[in-house]
């Protein structure tokens, strides 16, 4: 029995030891686990994109020399189609390459025999230009049904879009047609002799049901700097862009019916290379320009100083050049990604991040291409009549180190800058996700808070550990420790809803008290010296000086408040904030950096105080005793003996306070306006990394770019505080080793 009991005890002991060891190691594991988990979410931002060949379909010959004008694919990559110059859509099954249907485009204009060109308006809709100059519009739709045995049945349909069928004209080389609300049908023709003709046809129906048709035609026949080689029109027919054979980029305003105005006439390539391709990037703001040397750049109109209200086309982004002449540019319908081809290969680049995402090499020169409405399928036709379908995996094209930490020239901005504006109402918006203003905000808040907190906390810690009577110390220390337990949401609430309006009423009080409170202190010291002679007072206050200082401090604040009213009336015409704005052009926000400095400082004071006080108190008593015995005063001992010895500990206290201030969320969230601006002004708000996470993550879609960028900012916060805390801990361990535990 005794033996089994001992055995059992031993066994339990061993099991317990293993479990406890695991428990200890779990602490390290969980720290690493946190970092790994949040990094794992953030990392896909930088993953490369990939394209895999999903299918190849060899087109059966449709007859000798029948040109194919367009190709396309269904979203799930089950079916592809081609459009040839007879106006026939032929649909193929991807699985076996068989023809599933051949549909003649509906609504062929009378007298038309052959198609000249087909312009993709996006989403498998085409404008067809016929040989007699007539235009018709069709769109291709797919619908799929799943049969009982699990097979997907594709049903394809080609429908006509009536408002875009336009009568024949002559001399037309190239034509664009747009239907615009309130302006009717806008047709832009490129005529022989490089003339441009814009026709607006508006059909208005009045309340009686009478239709009135109005047509406005304008022809632009001024001589151009070169012959036109590429043209593009945006989806609302506001602007017409043109490129010439000597590298001149042109822009016309065609938004007024009957009027065509040349706005820009600018050299787009250094070596006067011909512009070979133009395309509007999603959102219709930027135009992508490709030239004969393979260079690709994007442009949009910018306010140029000295040009008045007019905006001039400016080169914004230069993307990675293609090896050969740019034969076409294809914008993605989902993002600001553009696909460009130099026949031999296809390149995908994102405009904002200037990231080269993909290069797809084709075995034979590519002549036609299209991108599916969701932007994830690329269909290519090469000159051997085979269609290849590519499955694109482009996860976060808009994010790169450049967009996160560098200056980026965003659409609609006058110059490159750092900006955070993650979302907007429309889909074609260019998200601005620069972490720089947030990092700036974090540093600003932390710095101001530390400027406020460190002197107060360290001086108070020195006083408490060195000069205060031990009995009082036993009371004051717990009070400060309880202060440390005050929830940050409480401090933030008071800062935002109580302190901010209070400071708003008299900002000057804050500045004056910085001067007046120390002045009061000097005054007190002066009288102190006098009264010290009357020694009973000295005995009473020795070790309790701070109690005497409380009324002095309060009086100081009171005088500052009184004086500020007076000063505001006398010096600043009764309104300091107005004066600030008028004479210094400084905007005053109610929730500004002063509030943050005080609130955040208040939150970290107890932390710095407690750790610093511990460190100072842990300096061996014999050092102090020796100094005092040699005749040093209590201040000399504290300042020259104790503080230098405790310096590593004090420094680690400051570091830990710093780490706490960096990550504090609720106070910054509640006490600032959360505006991501970069200015060192005391009177402006800010947005910190942590507050930004709290504000944006509830609305960030799972696994979107924003979601991952927010995780990335959490990684940044983690790494930053990790470094600070580890350094502080290392210092503290060294300090402890030096003095042991007394």
């Amino acid at each position, binding site marked *: 029995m005794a033996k089994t009991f001992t055995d059992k*005890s031993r066994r339990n002991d061993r099991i*317990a*030891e293993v479990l*406890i*060891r695991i*428990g*200890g190691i779990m602490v*390290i594991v*969980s*720290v690493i*686990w*946190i970092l790994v*988990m949040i990094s794992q979410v953030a990392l896909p931002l930088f993953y490369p994109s990939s394209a895999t060949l999903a299918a190849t379909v060899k087109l059966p010959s449709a007859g000798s020399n029948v040109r194919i004008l367009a190709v396309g694919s269904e979203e799930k990559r089950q079916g592809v189609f081609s459009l040839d110059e007879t106006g026939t859509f032929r649909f193929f099954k991807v699985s076996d390459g068989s023809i599933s249907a051949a549909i003649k485009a509906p609504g062929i204009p009378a007298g038309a025999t052959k198609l000249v060109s087909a312009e993709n308006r996006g989403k498998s809709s085409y404008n067809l230009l016929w040989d007699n100059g007539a235009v018709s519009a069709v769109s291709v739709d797919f619908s799929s049904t799943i049969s009982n045995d699990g097979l997907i049945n594709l049903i394809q349909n080609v429908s006509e879009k009536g408002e875009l069928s336009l009568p024949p004209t002559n001399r037309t080389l190239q034509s664009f047609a747009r239907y615009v609300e309130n302006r009717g049908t806008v047709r832009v023709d490129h005529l022989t002799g490089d003339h441009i003709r814009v026709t607006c046809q508006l059909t208005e129906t009045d309340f009686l049901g009478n239709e009135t048709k109005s047509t406005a035609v304008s022809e632009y026949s001024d001589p151009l700097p070169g012959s036109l080689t590429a043209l593009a029109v945006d989806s609302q027919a506001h602007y017409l862009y043109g490129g010439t054979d000597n590298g001149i980029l042109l822009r016309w305003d065609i938004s007024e019916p009957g009027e065509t105005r040349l706005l820009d006439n600018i050299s787009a390539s250094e070596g006067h290379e011909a512009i070979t391709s133009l395309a509007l990037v999603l959102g219709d703001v930027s135009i992508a320009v490709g030239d004969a040397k393979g260079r690709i750049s994007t442009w949009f109109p910018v306010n140029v100083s000295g040009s008045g209200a007019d905006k001039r086309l400016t080169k914004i982004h230069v993307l990675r050049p293609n090896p050969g002449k740019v034969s076409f540019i294809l914008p993605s319908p989902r993002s600001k990604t553009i696909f460009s081809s130099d026949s031999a290969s296809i390149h995908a680049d994102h405009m904002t991040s200037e990231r080269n995402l993909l290069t797809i090499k084709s075995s034979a020169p590519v002549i036609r291409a299209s991108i599916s409405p969701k932007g994830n399928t690329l269909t290519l036709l090469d000159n051997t009549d085979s269609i290849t379908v590519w499955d694109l995996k482009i996860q976060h094209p808009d994010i790169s180190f450049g967009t996160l930490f560098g200056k980026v020239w965003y659409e609609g901005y006058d110059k490159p800058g750092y900006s955070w504006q993650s979302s907007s109402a429309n889909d074609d918006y260019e998200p601005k996700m620069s972490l720089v203003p947030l990092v700036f905000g974090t540093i600003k808040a932390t710095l101001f808070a530390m400027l406020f907190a460190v*002197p*107060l906390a360290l001086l*108070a810690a020195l*006083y408490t550990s060195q*000069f205060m009577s031990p009995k009082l110390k036993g009371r*004051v220390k717990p*009070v400060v420790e309880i*202060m440390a*337990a*005050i*929830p*940050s*949401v*409480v401090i*933030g609430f008071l800062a935002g*809803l109580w302190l901010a309006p209070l400071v708003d009423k008299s900002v000057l009080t804050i500045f004056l008290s910085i001067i007046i409170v120390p002045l009061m*202190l000097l005054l007190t*010291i002066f009288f*102190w*010296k006098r009264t*010290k002679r009357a020694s009973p007072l000295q005995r009473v206050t020795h070790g309790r000086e*701070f*109690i005497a*200082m409380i009324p002095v*401090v309060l009086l100081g604040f009171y005088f500052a408040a009184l004086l500020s009213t007076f000063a505001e009336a006398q010096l600043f015409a009764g309104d300091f904030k107005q004066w600030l704005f008028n004479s210094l052009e400084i905007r005053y926000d109610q929730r500004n950096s002063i509030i943050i400095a005080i609130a955040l400082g208040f939150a970290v004071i107890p932390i710095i105080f407690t750790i610093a006080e511990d460190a100072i108190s842990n300096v061996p008593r014999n050092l102090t005793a020796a100094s005092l015995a040699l005749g040093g*005063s209590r*201040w*000399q001992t504290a300042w020259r003996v104790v503080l230098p010895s405790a310096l590593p500990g004090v420094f680690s206290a400051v570091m*830990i306070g710093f780490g706490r201030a*960096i*990550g504090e*969320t*609720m106070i910054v*969230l509640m006490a600032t306006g959360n505006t991501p601006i970069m200015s060192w002004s005391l009177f402006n708000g800010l947005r910190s990394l942590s507050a930004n996470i*709290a504000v944006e*993550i509830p609305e960030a879609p799972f696994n979107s770019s924003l979601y991952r960028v927010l995780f990335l900012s959490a990684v940044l*916060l*983690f790494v930053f*505080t*990790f470094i*600070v*805390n*580890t350094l*502080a*801990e*290392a210092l503290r*361990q060294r300090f402890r080793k030096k003095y042991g535990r007394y």
Partner: protein
Amino acid sequence: MKIFWKTGEPYVLATGSALAVILVMSLALIGTVMTNGLGYFWPDELVQFELKDGSAALGQITQREKNPITGEQRLQIKVANRDLLGQDFRWIDEKEIKSRSLPSKAVLIERREHGNFFGFLNGVTAEGVTLNTLPPEETLEQAMTIVSDKLSKTDQIRKEMSDLNNKAEHLRLKLLRLEYSGSTKSNIEIEESKESREKALSDFTELNDVFSNKLAEIGEITAQFTDVSGGTKDIALVDIVTVQYPNRMTFFEKCGAYIERIRELLLDDPRESNTEGGLFPAIFGTVMMVMLMSVFSLPFGVIAAIYLREYARDGVMTRMIRIAVNNLAGVPSIVYGVFGLGFFVYGIGGSIDNLFFPERLPTPTFGTGGILWSSLTLALLTVPVVIVATEESLASIPKGIREGSLALGATKFQTLTKNLLPMATPGIMTGLILSMARAAGEVAPLMIIGVVKLAPTLPFDANFPYFHMDRKFMHLGFHIYDVGFQSPNVEAAKPMVYVTTMLLLAIVIIASSSAIYFRNRMRGKYTTSTF
């Protein structure tokens, strides 16, 4: 004088004043919260102002300050009657006031909607109810008791309705499960469940009709009031929470009213998008989350501390663990929130949903924020507090006790469980209380992983399985943020925020000061009694 400066006495004073500034700031913080929070429930007098332009105003004086434009003294008055006047507060310049009086008939009605009503009682209209002819005040009181009687009779119906609702929801989930499993033999069961669900739903609608009829009937009983400018207002008695005549209440009556309001605060549900009424769900949610958190953080923290203090040898490993502990304590709380969202909510929660509740997808069950994930995340966040406290208390146990136990033949584990842990219990408890205080005040991570402004149900109720770990909950700290910063009428919501702040502050300060007190006592005990 020179010596005075050289010995550095002035600098001592300077350091002393730094401490003074800190203490003044703390006192200002606590004082502001207390004055604003405590005063809110006191039934202030209703002052009637006759203004020089002939109009009148009735309300409670809330503040007096200098008009920033004219420089005259002005009063901020809570005039209530939000539905009539559009806003709760108005400013009156003191020079505009002709006279003030305290009409004893002035009545303060606390309503379920539109905030308070200040005015005068005219009479009570009650159809189908016989009331004794009495002065209007007493008639109102009599009618109020009748109404509350009638309302309590409807409680039975309400309970039945909630049961039916639960049953229907239960059947809906069962149906989803059956349909998802797709086996043919469950067809009969599906039909049966469908039928009983239909029945439960139709019963519910029937009861609901009865209920709303009864409510409408009770709603017929109204009281007529006039406001100070002479307009009349009918208020259904059902909408009245309390009736007070603050101008004729004695001090003790006011104390009674005050205590009644505190009871309401602690035990009632919030009203008017959280700006009035009670805080019960928030208190309950906070307490339950903290309790749940302790269940996770206590064992983990204690074991880690035991390892550090009793098992690990001083070396690289211990140093690394110490660094890890410090980092757990120092990593921003929002990072924990982000981690909780990515790991617990989407990671583990998503997997649980896929494995156990696939029929409910895409509606998430555990794959969304909830009380379980919140408490797990906060457990991780507060573990360092437990570790540090436990380690400290283990360290303060004299070595002789360990050696004595081991010398008598006990194993290390026996020494631990029989000697060390019982001795360290006060210290561990201190750590636990401190960690609870920290968790109760932490808001940032919870905002992302499970706290909501208004939770329809508590995470614990009488329906199986009683603890609903997947439910979202309300939290005092988040309540402060939400009501103070997200509510449309911040000025009217402010008193409520102060009260909530006071409550949270009281909880946290009481908890941490008692923990600190015990810790200091314990420290004293061991340091004096040994060596």
